[in-house]
Every structure is written in structure tokens, then in C-alpha cells.
């Protein structure tokens, strides 16, 4: 075999049996501004490696050159920027035509990064140096911050999210979730599906197959059979996806990195049973120079050669302790690489790796120095037990195989493949098939683990045959110190120093040194770090234990966590009219309401002088039916309700158990056992729940049915002295003052629409009719009223005008003129509260308030200077001390002056009292307490007209 001679692909090999590149699709891209070529299927680093590039990044602390180590998603030195996307895993992401790939966090260039100076002062940057430096003088902290931020890892995010980014979420409920699409995972998935289970198979790589993908022809033949089995099954397969976390109730987070049309998708999987077949991760060998470009794991060179047809070097030293290393040697030799093998099983070792910008040689165990440009290590495995830990497992270290094994799992989590043990492929597949069948049985049989108590049992008792274990030498660190964490630039010497300083447990040493806390999150480093701590403390790895694996196992973008933006919006049936007529939208909770139509002051004047109409559909409306409705009203409202006649409406206030004002509204009696209650717009849902809570838990014997009908009606308030003239021709209800007086309710027809409810109430202080019409006819009635009112000067008004009108009238708004501490007595509602009622919600507190007296009360205020309108929340002060506040304020178009409501202490509540109002700009003005809450028509003549 010889290297291909394609221009620009100096180390590209001839076609390989298992290669994933498409040699018919060759395209250009750039790396740090220089054009290179790739084949479809190349990763960023495989394409660049084929072009002879060895260095892809600079390390975090010492700015050391870093190249390919794992040739997988975990590659710690291959994180790059792609166009405007930072932090792309270059050994996983497949390159696309025209992309501009650049090195991250280097200046001025990858070759001459200024932070290389840190290498000269490396001995001062030992573990925990940042806990000991940059402390004094304190005045330099901002400078330290700016400088240190320059060292922060990561690329450059765009200022605004590009439009091309699309994130989503979805939910899945498979009977069986299989994490890991290697041979064991594939077999388990097919077996579960054959046993009737709905199966979701998740694989982090771009294709199913695990290590078989870069195996020999025998492996490839087995892989083809397994893939055919999967294809013939009903298994749903997600590739380029990863199970990132396991939570209570067997809820799993699955990150899909290449869902169609999406940047990333988070799938929330509720699985009956999960099979963890995540396999093993090859562990780096800790020795001097182990981070140099040209030092690769055996699985990395096998990936490069067999998947991407890239010759990783010309002269290699291979330290092998297992069959995977042996297979790497065979692959290298087949690729034309000269190989020097050090067999650890026969006592071979490497002492240090030589070079500065890359590998130039190796000092092997017997002291000889072997020139080379490639060092390959195959020294052991890290078990990917993360999901098992998240399921409650506490894996135990097995010295025979120098890795951790699962110990006990809940019934809804099974484990198979390399995580469970070692064996030939056939035996591993048998185990996987048994796991799949057991999972399907547990997930689908009556009385399955779903919804049942989940006993935790030792893994060996989990009805699966135990897999044998193949002895493996325990190789963590060589004769010299090297890097343990390539992401954080933490070496075995740092860990030894941390232990010497007293951080003598894995958890403490981790936090002190930040080992395992970088982007690879311990998958490459944890066991080596634990081994270093164990070595430094003189205990075994089993005694040292691992750090805690927590979700997420893999990175998830914030975009995927947010997903599609679901923000429910509520609109009334008249919303199309509002939009056409220029309404300024007001966002009120989920509701979009017309705030005004351009001139709220003119809208106020129209209501006072002629007639106006406002859309009040969001007002909460509850249909109450049953003989016990009066009892319910008596319980929840502070005033009396037993004698409300049919056809009458009454205003009521609800308080919570602590006497604090909860909500207000009117309730009308439509029939002997039939009432219609209104609530505040914001309180609609809460009051419904409040009522149901009282009925279901405290008064279950009461015969009351509550039906929310807020949006069954389009609601509008026709207000103003000419409102009767507008409405009368359109309704069969007698609107004369005698027949339909203030605080009465009628049902009838409006604009030929039947089953309408008419309330004569007056939040604005004017003669007005609140009309509730079947919602589908809302726009029809609205437009008919406007047409009918044209000759009367009718004008639509919005929420802003309504707020001004009600303020002029002195009507409070719960939540604005009250707060979370305002009891009824402090809200100007003392006269409404009937403490002589036998009982009602909040009575004990209100009785107590009456006994001790209120601490503040709601009053109307007018600034002495009529041009002043103190902003809401302006403070009322006495001798510089805050004693109250302005709760509502507007300039009154009716009075031509500022008007307010405010909370003041009782000694300032007497009419005529002058109070000092401190404005947000610091000025003090004087306002006068008024006789009545109403600034306009305190006698109520207008609304009773």
C-alpha cells in the first residue's frame, strides 16, 4: 500500500474497505485562511491530517501545540471555529464545502501564539495557582479580569444568533432505549424489537457499528449483518446523537446533532427500560511528552486509516497492552508505516516522548531513543459508566481488567457490551441479545417496571449471564510525569502537588486542579486522575473511588435546551379589528390587548362626553350553578350574598386566609341556581382554582358546578352618557333606567345575537353596559355597535383610557392599588367587609386588623400643583422617612390635572391633609388628601343615570 498522490492530500491512502469518505465528492474549504480539499465524509481533522496538518489548537494554560489524540468527539485538542460557530469538535464534525475553519483563542496565529510565553513560567502556574495569585492589590482586580479573560478557552460567538440556527425539542416514549450503537447496542435493540418492544437506538458517531467500523474485513462483514438486522427491524435509530443524561423515572435527555433541518434537537425520552451499551473509551498513557502532536491512541489511528484513509505518520512507536493495540500495529503496517512495537504485556514501556512542536522520537523502556513521528498507545480503557451512575450505580474498580464495572442497577436499567465485561464478539452479542429480550420483557409485560416500584439489585443477579473478564495490565502512568487532563493542562505532577497540599481525595484534587473539569469532562482523564491521586496517597484506585458523574454526559447547546419558543398568546374575537384600527398592543400576561388607538386622552373625553366602547374579553368569567352557590359566595367574598335577587349584580372582594385582598369583581344572578361571576383578568385562572380548591377540599358536600367561560363570551363595555342610545336599537332588553337599573343583569339579544348577558355596572364611572356575547359573534356585535354609535360620536377606547377613567372615579385595581400585604381594611374596603357574617375566608385576620387598626389606607390625592403627575410608586415621606406610596396616577383629561390614589398611614388619611411626595428625580411635591376616593362624580350620579 502506498500513499495516494492526489494533490493536496499528501497522506491520503488508497481506498480502504470500511472508509466513510466519498471520493467522488471532493471540495474545497479553508483552514486558517489556506485552502484545502476534503472528501464528503471527512471530519475536519481527518481532511486536514490528510493534508499534512498536525496542530489544531493551543492548550489552555501553557499554549502547547495540540493535535489529534482520539480522532473522535472527545478529542481535546481539536476544538475549532467553523465560520461563525465556535467550539466545534473538529474530529467529529464533518466538513462541508466552502467552510472556513480557524484555530480558536490564538493570537496572532496558531504557530506564534503570544501565550506560549506561559511555557517559560510554567513552574509558577502549578495546580491552584489562581487561588494564590491575582489577589493583591485589590485595585488591580479589573485588570486581572481583563487579562485572564484573554486566556479563557473558546471561540468567538457571533453578536446575534444567525438565522440559520434552528433548535427544537421533542418527546419520545420507547419501551426500550439503547444507549450506544456498537455491536452490542445494535444486537440488543434488534432483540428487544423482535420481542415486541418499541425501541430507540442512539449512537454518538455518524454511523452504527462502534469499533467494528474501523475493524478488519471480518469485523466489517459482521457489521454489515448487524446493520441489515437493524434496517429490517422497527428500531428507530438516531446517529450523531448522544444520551446526555438519565433522570428519575427513567427520563433521558438525548441530544441530536444532525436532525433534519435542525441545528440541534433535545429529545426527552421516557423509556420503559434502558440498555446502556456505551462501550469503552480508550485511556491515554501518562508520560512525559504525551500531549505532543503525533501522540495518538490506537483507536485514533485505526479510525484515521480505516474510516478516512489517512496515513497518520511514517515511523511509529506503538506501546500496546491489548488486542486493540495489536490491531493498530497491523493497520499501520498495512498503511506503510514503519512500526516499533513496545509490548507492555512483555515488559515493554516508553519513558518519555521527545519533541517540541511534535513527536520526533521516543525513549523506550530499555533506554534506547527511537526516532519517529508517531506514537501510539493502547494501554487500557475507561468504562463509560456515566448513565449507570446517574441511575444510582456505584461502579467498582476491578484490578484484573484495570477498569470499573457496574455493581447494582435498578430494574429499568440494563448494561451490556464492553461495560459489562470482555469476551469474543459472538459471546458479547449473545449477552446483548439476552439484555434486549429481558428489557423488552420488563418494559412490555403486564406488571412491567413502568409504574412499579423499582428494586435495585446487584448486576450479577439481573437475569443476565455474567460476561468473563480478560486480564489487562494496569497502566496509568509511565516512569515520568505527563499530562492527565489535556483540556485543562493538568499533569500528574499537579495532582501529586495537590495531594501534598492536603487535597488528598479525588473530589478535592479534582476541584483544586480542575482535572476532569474541561470540555472532555473526565471521559479521558478521570481514571488517570484517580490513579495519580491513589499513587500520591498510597491507596488503591478502588479505595480512591471516582468523582461523581452528573448530567449532562455530553455538551448541549443553550439553543437546544430552550428549543422552539412556545409563548402562548391570547387574543379576543375583536383582535382583527384592533389591529386594523391601529391599536397599540399591550401585553397583559398572555393576553394581547389594545392599550390605545393613538390618543388615550381623547378616548377618555369621548367616554365622559359621548360614548366609548372597550374590549374587556379577558375579564374572568365563571358560570356557577347549584343550590349552594350563595354559600360559596358567602364563604369567598367578604360581603353578603344570601339575598341577591335574580337579575341583580353585586360587587365583591375576595381575601385570602391572611386577609390580604386576593381579587375582586361582580357576580350576577341569572336564575334561581345560576350565577355568572367575573374576576380580574389576571386572576381568572387563579380564582377558578381557588374556588375548586375550596369546593373539593373544604366543602365537598356543597352542590356547585363551576365552569370557566371567560372566552366563551366576547366582552365589551359600552360606556358614556349616550351608551343607552347606541345600544337600545340593537337589543330586545328594555334599557330604561327603571327596567334595567344600575347593578342589574339581563339576558337577551344584541345585534340579532341571542343568549347575550348584559350587566349595568360602571368601572369607568359612566352610564355603561357590559355586554357578554357568544364569542363567535363578538366581532359582529362590536362592529354593529360602532356603526350604530357613529351618529353618537362613539369611539373605541383602550386599557390606558380605562385606567384613567377608573382612577378619576376612584375604583381600585387589585394588585396595583393593593399589594401582597394589603388587607381589605387598608384598601378602602372596610365598609364592604361584613364581620357580622358567621364565617368567610380571611375573617379572623380581618377581625384582628379591625381590633389593632390599619397601618395604612387607600386615599385619593391631588398634587397642589395641578401640572404635577407623580409617577406611580413615588414615595410619600414624613421627615425623610417613607410612610406610603402613590399606587396609581394619571393626568386627568376630565379635570385637567394630576390625580392619584395612594397608600398613606391613618394619621395622614384625613381629607385635606397635605402630604409630601418624593419623586424619582428627588424632588418633593405636596399633594392633598381628598374627601372621596373618586375625583370625578363622587356621588355616582353619572353611572346611575
Amino acid at each position, binding site marked *: 500500500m502506498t500513499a495516494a498522490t492526489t494533490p493536496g492530500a499528501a497522506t491520503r491512502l488508497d481506498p480502504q474497505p470500511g472508509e466513510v469518505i466519498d471520493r467522488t465528492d471532493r471540495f474545497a474549504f479553508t483552514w486558517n485562511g489556506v485552502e484545502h480539499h476534503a472528501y464528503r465524509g471527512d471530519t475536519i481533522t481527518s481532511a486536514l491530517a490528510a493534508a499534512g496538518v498536525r496542530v489544531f489548537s493551543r492548550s489552555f494554560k501553557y499554549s502547547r501545540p495540540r493535535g489529534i489524540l482520539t480522532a473522535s468527539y472527545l478529542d481535546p485538542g481539536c476544538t475549532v471555529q467553523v465560520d461563525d460557530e465556535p467550539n466545534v469538535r473538529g474530529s467529529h464534525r464533518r466538513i462541508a464545502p466552502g467552510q472556513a475553519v480557524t484555530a480558536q483563542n490564538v493570537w496572532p496565529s496558531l504557530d506564534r501564539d503570544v501565550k506560549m510565553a506561559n511555557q517559560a513560567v510554567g513552574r509558577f502556574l502549578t495546580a491552584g495557582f489562581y487561588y494564590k495569585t491575582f489577589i493583591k492589590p485589590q485595585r488591580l482586580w479589573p485588570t486581572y479580569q481583563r487579562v485572564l479573560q484573554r486566556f479563557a478557552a473558546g471561540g468567538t460567538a457571533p453578536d446575534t444568533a444567525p438565522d440559520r440556527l434552528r433548535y427544537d425539542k421533542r418527546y419520545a416514549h420507547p419501551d426500550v432505549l439503547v444507549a450506544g450503537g456498537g455491536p452490542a447496542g445494535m444486537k440488543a435493540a434488534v432483540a428487544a424489537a423482535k420481542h415486541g418492544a418499541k425501541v430507540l437506538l442512539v449512537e454518538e458517531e455518524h454511523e452504527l457499528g462502534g469499533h467494528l467500523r474501523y475493524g478488519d474485513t471480518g469485523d466489517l462483514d459482521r457489521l454489515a449483518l448487524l446493520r441489515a438486522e437493524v434496517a429490517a427491524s422497527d428500531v428507530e435509530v438516531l446517529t450523531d446523537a448522544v444520551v446526555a443524561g438519565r433522570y428519575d423515572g427513567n427520563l433521558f435527555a438525548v441530544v441530536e446533532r444532525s436532525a433534519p433541518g435542525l441545528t440541534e434537537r433535545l429529545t426527552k425520552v421516557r423509556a420503559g427500560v434502558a440498555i446502556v451499551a456505551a462501550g469503552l473509551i480508550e485511556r491515554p498513557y501518562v508520560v512525559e511528552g504525551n500531549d505532543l502532536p503525533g501522540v495518538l491512541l490506537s483507536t485514533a489511528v485505526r479510525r484515521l486509516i480505516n474510516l478516512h484513509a489517512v496515513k497518520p505518520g511514517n515511523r511509529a512507536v506503538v506501546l500496546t497492552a491489548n488486542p486493540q493495540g495489536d490491531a493498530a500495529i497491523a493497520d499501520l503496517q498495512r498503511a506503510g508505516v514503519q512500526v516499533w512495537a513496545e509490548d507492555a504485556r512483555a515488559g515493554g514501556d516508553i519513558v518519555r516522548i521527545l519533541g517540541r512542536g511534535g513527536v520526533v522520537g521516543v525513549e523506550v523502556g530499555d533506554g534506547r531513543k527511537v526516532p519517529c513521528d508517531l506514537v501510539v498507545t493502547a494501554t487500557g480503557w475507561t468504562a463509560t459508566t456515566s448513565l449507570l451512575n446517574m441511575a444510582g450505580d456505584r461502579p467498582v474498580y476491578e484490578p484484573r481488567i484495570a477498569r470499573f464495572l457496574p455493581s447494582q442497577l435498578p430494574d429499568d436499567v440494563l448494561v451490556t457490551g464492553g461495560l459489562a465485561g470482555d469476551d469474543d464478539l459472538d459471546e458479547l452479542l449473545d449477552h446483548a441479545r439476552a439484555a434486549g429480550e429481558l428489557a423488552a420483557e420488563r418494559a412490555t409485560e403486564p406488571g412491567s417496571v413502568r409504574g412499579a416500584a423499582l428494586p435495585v439489585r446487584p448486576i450479577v443477579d439481573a437475569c443476565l449471564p455474567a460476561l468473563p473478564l480478560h486480564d489487562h495490565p494496569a497502566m496509568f502512568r509511565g516512569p515520568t510525569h505527563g499530562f492527565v487532563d489535556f483540556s485543562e493542562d493538568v499533569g500528574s505532577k499537579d495532582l501529586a502537588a495537590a495531594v501534598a497540599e492536603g487535597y488528598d481525595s479525588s473530589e478535592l484534587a479534582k476541584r483544586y486542579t480542575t482535572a476532569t473539569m474541561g470540555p472532555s469532562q473526565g471521559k479521558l482523564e478521570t481514571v488517570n486522575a484517580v490513579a495519580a491521586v491513589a499513587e500520591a496517597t498510597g491507596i488503591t484506585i478502588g479505595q480512591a473511588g471516582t468523582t461523581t458523574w452528573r448530567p449532562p454526559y455530553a455538551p448541549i447547546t443553550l439553543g437546544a435546551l430552550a428549543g422552539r419558543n412556545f409563548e402562548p398568546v*391570547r387574543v379576543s374575537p375583536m383582535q382583527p379589528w384592533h389591529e386594523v384600527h391601529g391599536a397599540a398592543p399591550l401585553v397583559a400576561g398572555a393576553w394581547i390587548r389594545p392599550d390605545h388607538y393613538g390618543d388615550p386622552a381623547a378616548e377618555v373625553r369621548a367616554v365622559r362626553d359621548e360614548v366609548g366602547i372597550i374590549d374587556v374579553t379577558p375579564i374572568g368569567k365563571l358560570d356557577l350553578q347549584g343550590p349552594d352557590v350563595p354559600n360559596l359566595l358567602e364563604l369567598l367574598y367578604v360581603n353578603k350574598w344570601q339575598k341577591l335577587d335574580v337579575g341583580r349584580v353585586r360587587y365583591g372582594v375576595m381575601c385570602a386566609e391572611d386577609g390580604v385582598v386576593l381579587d375582586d369583581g361582580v357576580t350576577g344572578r341569572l336564575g334561581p341556581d345560576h350565577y355568572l361571576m367575573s374576576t380580574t383578568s389576571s386572576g381568572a385562572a387563579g380564582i377558578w382554582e381557588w374556588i375548586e380548591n375550596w369546593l373539593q377540599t373544604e366543602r365537598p358536600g356543597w352542590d356547585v358546578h363551576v365552569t370557566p367561560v371567560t372566552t366563551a363570551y366576547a366582552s365589551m363595555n359600552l360606556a358614556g352618557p349616550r351608551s343607552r342610545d347606541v345600544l337600545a336599537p340593537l337589543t330586545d332588553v328594555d334599557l330604561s333606567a327603571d327596567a334595567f337599573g344600575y347593578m342589574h343583569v339581563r339576558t337577551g339579544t344584541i345585534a340579532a345575537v341571542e343568549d347575550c348577558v348584559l350587566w349595568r355596572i360602571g368601572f369607568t364611572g359612566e352610564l355603561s353596559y357590559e355586554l357578554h356575547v357568544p364569542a*363567535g359573534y363578538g366581532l359582529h356585535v362590536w362592529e354593529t355597535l360602532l356603526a350604530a354609535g357613529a351618529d353618537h360620536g362613539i369611539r373605541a377606547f383602550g386599557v390606558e383610557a380605562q385606567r384613567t377613567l377608573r382612577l378619576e372615579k376612584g375604583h381600585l385595581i387589585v394588585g396595583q392599588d393593593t399589594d401582597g400585604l394589603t388587607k381589605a381594611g387598608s384598601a378602602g374596603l372596610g365598609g364592604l367587609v361584613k364581620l357580622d357574617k358567621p364565617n368567610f375566608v380571611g375573617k379572623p385576620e380581618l377581625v384582628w386588623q379591625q381590633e389593632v387598626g390599619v397601618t395604612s389606607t387607600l386615599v385619593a390625592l391631588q398634587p397642589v400643583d395641578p401640572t404635577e403627575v407623580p409617577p406611580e410608586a413615588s414615595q410619600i415621606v414624613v421627615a425623610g422617612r417613607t410612610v406610603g406610596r402613590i399606587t396609581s396616577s394619571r393626568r386627568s383629561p376630565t379635570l385637567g390635572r394630576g390625580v392619584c390614589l395612594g397608600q398613606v398611614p391613618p394619621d395622614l388619611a384625613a381629607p385635606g391633609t397635605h402630604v409630601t411626595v418624593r419623586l424619582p428625580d428627588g424632588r418633593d411635591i405636596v399633594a392633598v388628601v381628598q374627601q372621596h376616593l373618586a375625583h370625578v362624580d363622587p356621588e355616582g350620579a353619572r353611572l346611575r343615570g
Partner: protein
Amino acid sequence: MAEPTTAGPAPQPEPLARSPIPTLTPTAIVAGWEVTDRSSDASTRLADLSPLAKVHVRASEDGALAAALDVRFLKAARDDYGVLITGSGPGEWTLIGPAGTAGDIAGRLSALDVDERITIVDLTHGRALVRLTGDAGSTLLATVCAVDLDEHTMPDGTCLRTSVARVVTDLVRDDRDGVRSYLLHCERSSGAYLAEQLRQVGEAHGLGVEGFAAAGR
């Protein structure tokens, strides 16, 4: 101020009812409602059926009315009149019938000889209602609803109340001619939002919009 007027209403044109979900052209009038009048060849389709009569009933969970309706909580079935009875809550049913028949449905319920108090509320105008038909319906819903809609957990003739795109929604499995179909109804003011969200997530599934009549109600 003008003199009070008690002369009664002047003749009014026939009122037109409108769905909370914007209609698409061409339109038609059905039972006084303006509806979309179009068909779709898409394998998965969304239709606005808000004009259908929707009658809400409350009674004892295990009383005489429950026995007469014979539809338990979380189940759905059609009666002899073709009205779909859904057990939307404990002691709570929503009856869905042809447009303009809410009065008939309520009348039949009132005429039942049951010795208990029942509450009947016409929610035709208070609920937005859409039908999602096609094989991709459950896949589409999986992006907006956390509930397992698999055949074994939600077969034809079942219903539940859940969150769909963060809107409280009654979801009814009501297959049409052997094709998987869901009715979704929510309070009216969120109807336009819910329909738009379904349309947006349906884009990836080739969702088509069809009219009231084409949906077969």
C-alpha cells in the same frame, strides 16, 4: 342626555359567527359560521372545526347521567346521533356534534330522566377545535406534547387533557376511516396560537390545511 329608549331592536342582518382561527380563502358559510372551504392532498392535514357544537356537562361521576352517557373519564365514543362524547374529566363530559346542534344536544341531555342535578353549558363559542389527521399526526404532536401517544397508551376512542405547545388542551383520538386522527380543543382565545404552532411544527411533516367540509367534521 338623550331620553331612555325602550322601543326594542331594529331589524338586524343575520349575524356571522367567526372562528378564533383565521379562515383561509375560499370561504363558505356553514350554520352561520364562516369557514375555510378547501381540500388538501397532504397525507397529514389540519382543519379548523371550531364551529362544531361543544356542550359541556357536569354531573356525578358515577350517577345516572354517567350511566346514560356510558363514556368513562379518558374515553370517547359516539352516540346514536353521531355526537362524540368525551370523558374530559371526572364527572365531566364534552359532547361534540355537528355545527348548530348545541341546542339539540343540550335538549336531549335535559330530557334524560335522571335523578340528579346536571349542569349543561354550551361552550361552542368558548373552545377552539382543530382536527389533525394523518399518519404523521402523533410524530408532529411529539414536538409539542409530552404525553405518550402510542397506540397502546392512547388508542382510538380515548381522550385526555394535557399541555400542547404550553396551552391546556383536550386531546381526543378520533380516527377517521382507519386513519389516525386527533381532535384538539382549547379555550378560544388561544386557538389561533395553537393552530399556528401546529402548522409551524407541521411544516417538517408536509402538513396541509384543509377546510371544514373537507375534514369530514
